[in-house]
């Protein structure tokens, strides 16, 4: 699973820490999601989608092996 969280975060000029606080997780979680080491739950994905005002499928894309 690929994601564009880092890009979306940069567009809103947010640090990982700020984003983490806004959606109620740790900075480590944001870091892991951005590096595609962790696929977030639907709830977290929707929270990000609302925050960035983007559709979930704009933020997260399936890869060939998914």
């Amino acid at each position, binding site marked *: 699973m690929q994601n564009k969280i880092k890009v979306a975060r940069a567009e809103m000029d947010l640090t990982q820490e700020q984003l983490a606080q806004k959606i109620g*997780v740790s900075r*480590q*979680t944001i*870091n*892991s*999601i951005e590096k595609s080491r*962790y696929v*977030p*739950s639907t*709830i977290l994905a929707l929270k990000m989608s609302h925050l960035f005002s983007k559709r979930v499928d704009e933020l997260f894309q399936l890869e060939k092996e998914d």
Partner: protein
Amino acid sequence: MEEKVTIASCQNNERSKLLKILKFKLPHKYKKLGLISAGLLMLGLIISKFAGYNHLINKDAIRTVMLLALLIASLSQEKVEDEYVNHLRGQSYILAFICSLGYSIILPLITFVIDFLIVRITGDGQTNFYEISAFEVMFMMICFQLLFLVGLKRLDLAE
């Protein structure tokens, strides 16, 4: 149709009970408390063994309390508890389960082979199969879980 609804609602009830157990966590402060208590009990056991007070204490009772202390540490929240930590916690339980099973299978085999070789070389005694106690397996499992959780978090930070 009515019967199906009843069965479904029963299943939902069971599921919600299980989810409650899965979601149960103690506050973070209990982690330190559990680890310190377990450490002190372990130290007490070691000292009593070397100081010759072994007969004065109930080893089984202390071991049970030690397991309880480690369980408290295992069930305690991290400083920041979110879904990612829960995910790592789940992975640490799986790894701990596999490793402790591996430990309880491999260790007796290794001791058996060593025992067998010693008997072959020295020519006296007999080969015994080392039995791992339930305490040993549970202790290893809970220690592995705590270590894997720390390890997984550290590995993640390191990358």
